């Protein structure tokens, strides 16, 4: 040879060869890749959609953050206003608005009906940002103004409907009567509080004083919002504020944390749905692997020829890897495009659930994450077949029967695959907001894959070892389950995983709603009464206990305070454990007691104090929170309660049943420390459903300042939110099921040629169409049943682990979900099996036999 030798980069040759194969067109050369593409599109679209919708909610929150917060800076104090000195400082640093929020009972003036409202008293400066929108269009100040000695009140339509009132009618709140001046349509600083227990009502600050509700210790919040002058930096003002009032009891927020509760909720929901989406992608991965395997099997002779002509193994691997990744890129791109468009589709669906609109746009981070998940999944599932194809010997062109191609991966190949799997796991964990949950998911997914592989192996072996049945149809069906190239493994793995996800989600949901219903029916009180003044406690107790139909009544004092140090370490220096961060986040409800609580918790460590204890402050602490923060008996905890510092020693730990919906406190003080502090009492009352209205009316008439919270109403609200989450979860898990069905249909289609040949030969030997069809249907019914049975067990186990391990909720086996999913599973396998069989039966025998 005299030709010059080029030193061009080898990837150019790889690319040139890959392009030649792709050139023939996707349709003819990559027929089997429809499933491959569908699986990737589905999986990446699900992950990209969840991320994009979440990001667009986040962007909506950030965009409206100042309006949601109501200013550039917000200070919140519980139960009491800022001091004149503090107010003066705040007013000198910007435009100041003061708001008081509390819960109160709004009643018809004829006393016939009443409803808890979320009352907000605003000053003239409110709102600093945005406008309050009334249905009538009139300005807020006009609506709230005093006319003929009566203050105006604006409220949501739901209160008017509930009390059967109209604009212009009157309502009483506390000691004051109000004129309903308008219907509230839009409130700029909405949803910055947690759960809303009633419709919003807005009155003026002067009108609130007239209600006489602001008694010492009443459960009220004072909000101070500042609109900073141009050029002023939020951070600077925060720093100066901290310097001027280092011990002030307020909690400060700026627009970056306008809706922290909502942000946390969205983060959790996003993670949960992303994991379900990732399950769909992993299930689709099986389809990806099957398609790559089938494609490379067809290419065996080309690969062997290339090797005969001197192609090194690495070049063969690179050349086919390039083709697979190019196709994957196509699928992923379509998935990302769908995901990127999803905020547009989701916007109308979430409009009623969120305080902000979705901010439409392209969010690169979630799209990039979905793309990387897609690429890694493709690699994990296609490298195995690719590596086996790389090892196709050149001698395969001469000889197939003896010394078949290598079926096992080399050690270094297994290492590469292991690294890819670990990268996928690491990406899942590192990009999750809740890493322990992500670790559980990764572990669970790996265990499920291993378990289903093992199960598939077991099914194949069992079918092979089964004593030969006399019925030839059943014998054929069993043989089809274990013959080489049977779709058994693919179907058990893919459909099994999909059904597992669905069973788990349905069972978790069923368990949660059953627990809630059970607690509400059997254990939860009917009412929470709040803001009972110290001088009212005895009268209240007498009234409620003597009320016909009333059951258990519990009344405890309550005041608010926050933990400032644990075991001598300031809270600011403690990294809170993720599931217990709320313990040190802001003010908590505190109580004191002479005797241990009768229900809702039990002492698991240490001793309760004597009823007449009068020594240095002791506390009883939530056992789980103590464990999370590393606290134990004898450790000191420092509190700031209404501006005063208390240091108390942990005397005992209680295991708290938060699900009981009763009054539970993380911290209970010993007697002596808090009795003289301003406080109110709260009470829980159990009563017959029929007597609820009458009790509410009696309490409200006698104690207008006491607010009644109906647990049933709160639970209904919670259920409504849960129902929306459930729809989202079901939608994403449906993607997992669709991925499973795609893989199933692909696996069945892959065996089509052989099935047609079988059918033709059987018909030639005298089998009727019905015989052949029956055999195929038995095969797929068996496969579906076995898969469903395994998936039901795996799904139940996953649901059990999540409900008891993560949610700490009692577990009940709910067979309904299982029966339903079993039917789906058997139905799907039968359907696709029947389609395959039908096509096979339609073929004429002669031409096929001649060809064979």
């Amino acid at each position, binding site marked *: 040879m005299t030709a010059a030798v080029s030193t061009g980069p080898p990837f150019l040759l790889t690319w040139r060869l890959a392009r030649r194969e792709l050139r023939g067109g996707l349709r003819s050369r990559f027929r089997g890749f429809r499933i491959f593409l569908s699986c990737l599109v589905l999986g990446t679209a699900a992950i990209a959609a969840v991320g994009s919708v979440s990001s667009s909610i986040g962007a909506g929150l950030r965009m409206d953050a100042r309006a949601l917060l109501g200013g550039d800076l917000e200070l919140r104090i519980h139960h009491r206003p800022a001091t004149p000195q503090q107010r003066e400082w705040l007013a000198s640093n910007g435009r100041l608005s003061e708001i008081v929020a509390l819960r109160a009972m709004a009643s018809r003036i004829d006393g016939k009906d009443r409803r808890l409202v979320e009352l907000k008293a605003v000053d003239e400066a409110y709102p600093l940002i945005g406008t309050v929108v009334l249905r009538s269009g009139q300005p807020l100040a006009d609506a709230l103004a005093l006319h003929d000695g009566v203050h105006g009140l604006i409220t949501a339509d739901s209160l008017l409907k509930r009390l059967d009132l109209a604009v212009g009618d009157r309502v009483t709140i506390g000691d004051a009567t109000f004129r309903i001046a308008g219907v509230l349509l839009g409130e700029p600083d909405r949803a910055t509080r947690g759960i809303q227990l009633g419709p919003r009502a807005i009155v003026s600050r002067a009108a609130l004083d007239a209600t006489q509700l602001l008694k010492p210790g009443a459960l009220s919040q004072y909000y101070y919002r500042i609109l900073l002058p141009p050029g002023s930096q939020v951070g600077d003002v925060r720093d100066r504020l901290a310097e001027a009032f280092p011990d002030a009891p307020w909690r400060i927020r700026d627009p970056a944390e306008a809706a922290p509760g909502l942000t946390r909720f969205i983060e959790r929901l996003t993670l949960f749905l992303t994991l379900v989406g990732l399950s769909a992608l992993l299930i689709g991965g099986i389809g990806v692997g099957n398609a790559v395997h089938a494609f490379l099997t067809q290419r065996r002779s080309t690969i062997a020829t290339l090797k005969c002509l001197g192609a090194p193994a690495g070049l063969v691997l690179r050349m086919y890897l390039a083709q697979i990744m190019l196709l994957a890129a196509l699928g992923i791109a379509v998935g990302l495009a769908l995901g990127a468009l999803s905020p547009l589709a989701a916007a109308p669906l979430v409009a009623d659930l969120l305080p902000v609109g979705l901010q439409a746009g392209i969010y690169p981070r979630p799209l990039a994450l979905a793309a990387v998940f897609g690429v890694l999944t493709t690699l994990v599932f296609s490298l195995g077949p690719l590596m086996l194809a790389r090892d196709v010997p050149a001698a395969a062109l*001469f000889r197939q029967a003896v010394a078949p191609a290598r079926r096992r991966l080399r050690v270094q190949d297994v290492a590469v695959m292991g690294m890819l799997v670990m990268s996928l796991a690491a990406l899942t964990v590192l990009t999750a907001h809740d890493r322990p949950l992500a670790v559980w998911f990764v572990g669970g997914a790996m265990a499920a894959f291993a378990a289903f592989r093992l199960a598939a192996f077991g099914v194949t072996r069992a079918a092979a070892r089964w004593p030969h049945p006399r019925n030839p149809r059943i014998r054929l069906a069993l043989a089809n389950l274990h013959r080489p190239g049977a779709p058994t493994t693919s179907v058990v793995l893919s459909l099994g995983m999909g059904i597992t996800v669905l069973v788990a989600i349905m069972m978790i949901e069923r368990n949660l709603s059953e627990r809630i219903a059970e607690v509400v029916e059997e254990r939860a009180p009917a009412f929470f009464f709040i803001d009972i003044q110290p001088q009212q406690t005895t009268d209240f107790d007498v009234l409620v206990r003597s009320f016909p139909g009333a059951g258990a009544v519990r009344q405890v004092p309550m005041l608010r305070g926050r933990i400032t140090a644990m075991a001598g370490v300031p809270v600011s220096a403690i990294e809170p454990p993720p599931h217990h961060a709320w313990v040190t986040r802001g003010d908590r409800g505190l109580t004191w007691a002479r005797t241990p609580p009768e229900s809702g918790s039990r002492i698991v460590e240490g001793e309760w104090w004597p009823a007449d204890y009068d020594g240095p402050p002791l506390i009883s602490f939530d056992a789980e929170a103590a464990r999370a923060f590393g606290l134990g008996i004898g450790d000191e905890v420092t509190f700031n309660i209404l501006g005063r510092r208390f240091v108390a020693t942990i005397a005992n730990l209680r295991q708290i049943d938060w699900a009981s919906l009763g009054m539970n406190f993380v911290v209970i003080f010993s007697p002596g420390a808090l009795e003289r502090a301003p406080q109110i009492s709260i009470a829980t009352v159990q009563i017959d459903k029929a007597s609820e209205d009458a009790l509410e009316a009696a309490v409200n008439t006698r104690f207008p300042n006491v607010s009644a919270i109906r647990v049933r109403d709160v639970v209904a609200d919670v259920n409504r939110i849960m129902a929306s989450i459930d729809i989202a979860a079901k939608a994403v898990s449906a993607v997992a099921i669709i991925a499973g069905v795609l893989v199933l249909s692909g696996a069945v289609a892959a065996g089509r040629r052989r099935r047609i040949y079988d059918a033709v030969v059987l018909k030639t030997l005298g089998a009727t169409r019905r015989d052949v069809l029956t055999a195929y249907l038995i095969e797929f019914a068996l496969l579906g049943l076995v898969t469903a049975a395994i998936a039901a067990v795996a799904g139940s186990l996953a649901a059990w682990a999540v409900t008891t391990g993560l949610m700490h909720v009692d577990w009940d086996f709910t067979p309904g979900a299982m029966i339903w999913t079993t039917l789906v599973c058997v139905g799907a396998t039968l359907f696709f099996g029947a389609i395959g069989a039908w096509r096979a039966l339609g073929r004429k025998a002669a031409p096929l036999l001649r060809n064979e």
Partner: protein
Amino acid sequence: MHDRSTTPLQSPSPIVAVSGLELTLSSAAGAVEILRGIDVEIGPGEQVALVGASGAGKSSMMMIVGGLERASAGSVLVAGYDLTDMSEDELALFRRENVGIVFQSFHLIPTMTALENVAIPLEFAGHRDAFALAAAELEAVGLGHRTGHYPGQLSGGEQQRVALARAFVTEPRLLLADEPTGNLDGDTGAQIIELMFRLSEQKGTTLLLITHDPALASRCARELRIADGRIVGDVTRAVAAG
């Protein structure tokens, strides 16, 4: 034509030299002894027919000489390379530079044009003018007008001509041909054989040809007969050129 019971003395440096060659393969039914001790030398430019019944070991011997299969025992020297201890990729490199192969069923790559099929071994070797050389080779086998056609668009005879062009384009020192006319009709087969012999003579390529066809075997100056994994006959004869 006369039988010879011993291996003839060849030129000082044979292109193929195997001794004590054994091949045992495992199968589901147990180990199968394919080759049981073969000693043979083939000199440069020789044209050798390898004949024997099906399953005698012809293809296996050819695969070992082509570096497509590893011997279980014995030494294999081809074109001065000791194939015994070479890695998979070293063997690929060795084939690329020294061996051309022609198969019974052509084994052209269906997704590539005739020109690309012929150019590909040159491309593997990194030749800049791979396509020009490939085009010239196609011209030489009479397919200059079919360069852009895919294998599916060519007749059986044309496909085997492309395969010949592909085998000769690297100017290999050894051409291995496994029943090159087995899938062709008589006339077409004869044309292919003519072409193959002409090219191997023009380029001085050693030819090792597996065939069941006695007429074809008699075109070769030497005939090796294999039976049951052993060489049972080695005949040299005078043949008329082309």
